[in-house]
């Protein structure tokens, strides 16, 4: 196991990661352990099949998209700092830190969280959720419970509700506005305590 100081030395850029993501060193250590247990072949990075080995994720309707979210465009591997940066979106929002004013925006802020969720829809990264993209997600989530026409109607209606500039797609701002009443901060938080 080793002492905590020597383990922290194994994590490159630990201090920088802590500053950018807001994780504490204890969190980082735990995430490091988790990373190493996911990395079955001890390669020092994760690939898609490492993620797919997780049973729960495989049964998740949007599991594929979640996995994709870890990989930055074009790459096939996830190293530890990317792993941590993605997971940092799910830290509970620190309300107090913002009062210090000049903090750079943490991944766990509400906007960043919403951006993350937005990108689960917007696979082609054009900044808008088109009707087709919405339909794909709906199809994945609702599965065989609904007929195709019902899916179309639901998507139609959802776009009507949110689409303010009538371009038949949902931009990030419209997305944010439609969720303004929802408590994203708590909903999109995972407790990283052991």
């Amino acid at each position: 196991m080793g002492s905590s100081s020597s383990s922290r030395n194994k994590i490159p850029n630990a201090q920088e990661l802590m500053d950018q993501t807001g994780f504490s060193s204890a969190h980082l250590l735990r995430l490091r352990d988790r990373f190493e247990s996911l990395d079955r072949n001890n390669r020092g990075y994760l690939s898609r099949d490492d993620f797919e080995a997780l049973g729960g994720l495989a049964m998740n309707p949007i599991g594929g998209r979640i996995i994709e979210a870890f990989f930055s465009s074009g790459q096939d591997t996830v190293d530890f700092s990317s792993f941590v940066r993605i997971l940092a979106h799910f830290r509970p929002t620190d309300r107090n830190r913002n009062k210090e004013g000049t903090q750079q925006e943490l991944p766990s802020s509400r906007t960043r969280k919403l951006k993350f969720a937005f990108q689960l829809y917007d696979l082609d990264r054009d900044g808008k959720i088109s009707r087709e993209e919405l339909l794909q997600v709906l199809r994945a989530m609702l599965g065989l419970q609904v007929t195709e026409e019902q899916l179309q109607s639901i998507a139609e209606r959802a776009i009507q509700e949110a689409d303010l500039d009538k371009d038949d797609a949902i931009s990030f701002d419209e997305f944010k506005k439609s969720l303004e009443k929802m408590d994203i901060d708590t909903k999109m938080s995972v407790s990283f305590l052991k």
Partner: protein
Amino acid sequence: MAALWTLSLLLSASLLGCLAVTSPDGSSLPHNLPPSLGTNSSDGSLSVDLPMALRVFSMDYHHVQAPFEIVLWIMLASLAKLGFHWSGRVPAVVPESCVLIMVGLLVGGVIYGVRHSAPPTLSADAFFLFLLPPIVLDAGYFLPGRLFFENLGTILWYAVLGTLWNVLGIGLSLYGVCLLAQSSLGDVSLLHCLLFGSLIAAVDPVAVLSVFQEMQVNEQLHILVFGESLLNDAVTVVLYKLFESFLRLPSVSGLDVLLGGCRVVVVGIGGLCVGLFFGLLAALTSRFTSRAQVIAPLFVFLYSYLSYLTSEMLHLSGIMAIVTCAATMKQYVEANVSERSNTSIQYFLKMWSSVSETLIFIFLGVSTIQDIHMWSWPFVCSTLLLCLIWRATGVLLLTAFVNKLRRNAVTFRDQFIIAYGGLRGAICFSLVFLIDDFPKKRLFITTTIVVILFTVFVQGMTIKPLVELLYVKRKKRALPTLSEEIHSRLIDHLVAGIEDVVGYWGQHYWKDKFEQFNKKYLRRFLIRNDRQASSSILRVYQELERREQRGVEEEAPPIVDPRSQGRPLLPEEMESIRRILSRNLQNFNNKQTPAYSRHTLHQDTSVDRTRKPLYRHQSLGERYSYNTITHFQGEDGGLSEPQRVRTGLSRSHTVCSISPRSTLLDSSDSAGPAQTRSMDPKAAREDLVSPKHQETVERAARKHLSFVLENEKQQ
């Protein structure tokens, strides 16, 4: 309003009359009877004094006495309730429970004045066996499941540990007070104090419900207080019986205390298991009720009551059993049983629980007027103070602990409401009557009554202004928009996935696991034809659809040009639809009532309703389809005739139906050749098929979902 009050007064008078007729021997009372035409025989029946054996007019009260009096009491209670709601500003200031107790006090006083003896009291048996189950059943059936389980840890924490803290605290400090006031209270032993503590410490679900429903607090707070009041029954029952049996034992050893601790667990989990068992049985039974639909609601009540009685028989927690039973069977019963039966179940639940609650409060008032009071200033006042103090400190301590583990911290304001909203009610009252007789029993009874009256009146009346003063987060009232529902679901899946990655088994993990188990095994086994479970997104969507249809009936919508769904809607269609939707949604949102409303079924408005899955309604052998028939153009006017009739019928039954995908494929296959024939393929399909089969038309028609407005069909 005045009429109602006079009516209730008349009723009380007739109650008195009945009681007078059955007056105990030896006391002379005025008879408020209709003028007698003949002699009064000693058993209270009148007869015309004719030499003949034939009696033209006679009255035999004893024959119907018991049911007659019961009905009169219930009538009095209900009229009082009606009067309360019609009486202007009173409901805003005074909670209903207070008014009912006051009415009870009044009636009790009058009866006492007339008869000079104690009025009928609430017997513990009647309370526990007849009056309490409907209320708890109603609460359990409408329990918001997801919210409850999300907060289950906190609720258990408060219920078990909080109750223990209160019981021990109040018991021990009361004993201290008794020791101090040696002169008057010297003969109250430690065990007696602990026994008293155990029954007075428990928060009462009936009182809590009746006060909190009139206050709009956020759901989380409501579920915390309410869940606690339900679950602490297990602890209360065990502690009460424990101390009672300790009182009977010659001596108490450490082993007995340990066994007592085990008993808490057994009682709680035992009640849970009994409830689960009967719940699943009820779900299974409801699967087979399609041929005798009128009986279906009866099974719900029978099984729930059976679970309650069984666990009472086994000395387990009856409240937990009945709540678990109701919560378990709900989703399966709703899926299996027709729409009308569902409505009947919900209405009967509300009705019975309403009547029960009213009766309980009135009897509380009536039973206060008794001969057997014993007053002792130090005891009563210290009990009141100690109850408040121990509850406040308990809540503070426990919350400080539990906030570290929760995502949504329980704020100070919430804590205040939890502590202040710990009302005592009829459960304490009945329990105190059940104590074995000992010299100071009357003192206990008096103190219990004082505490109940204090909490219900003072705390009940002041909690609403205090809440407003503290700006407790109010309940969000709006139905979530479809976007919110969709995105919320996405985020749920997302967080579950991330928790998988991180390896943290949060509540999402267990929720997902349970849902999978539910879908794979339970639903298949317990639901008829395994109708597909509608996801909540679908339900919200269909609920919104249903509302706009109903809303449109009331107003004249602009003409929309409806066509089949495949192509995107024209701009003017969208505009009119959106206008109608926003207008109707606003209207419906304004009519919302809170979830646990005693007085109305939350028809269109609460989230609970939207969770109900939709299914094909088959009643009386006919098939109704609803609002899913595409409208065709004028040339098919002749064709639309039979359908118009059918839709007219269907509207009155307000049933929705979804066709599974297989039907879609079937009809499209059969309609394939028709498509090439005419310009409007869907209309042609109707053309082709409907002369042959009414049913096929329905099936084909049903698969079209469109924003069809009611009025359109009439054209």
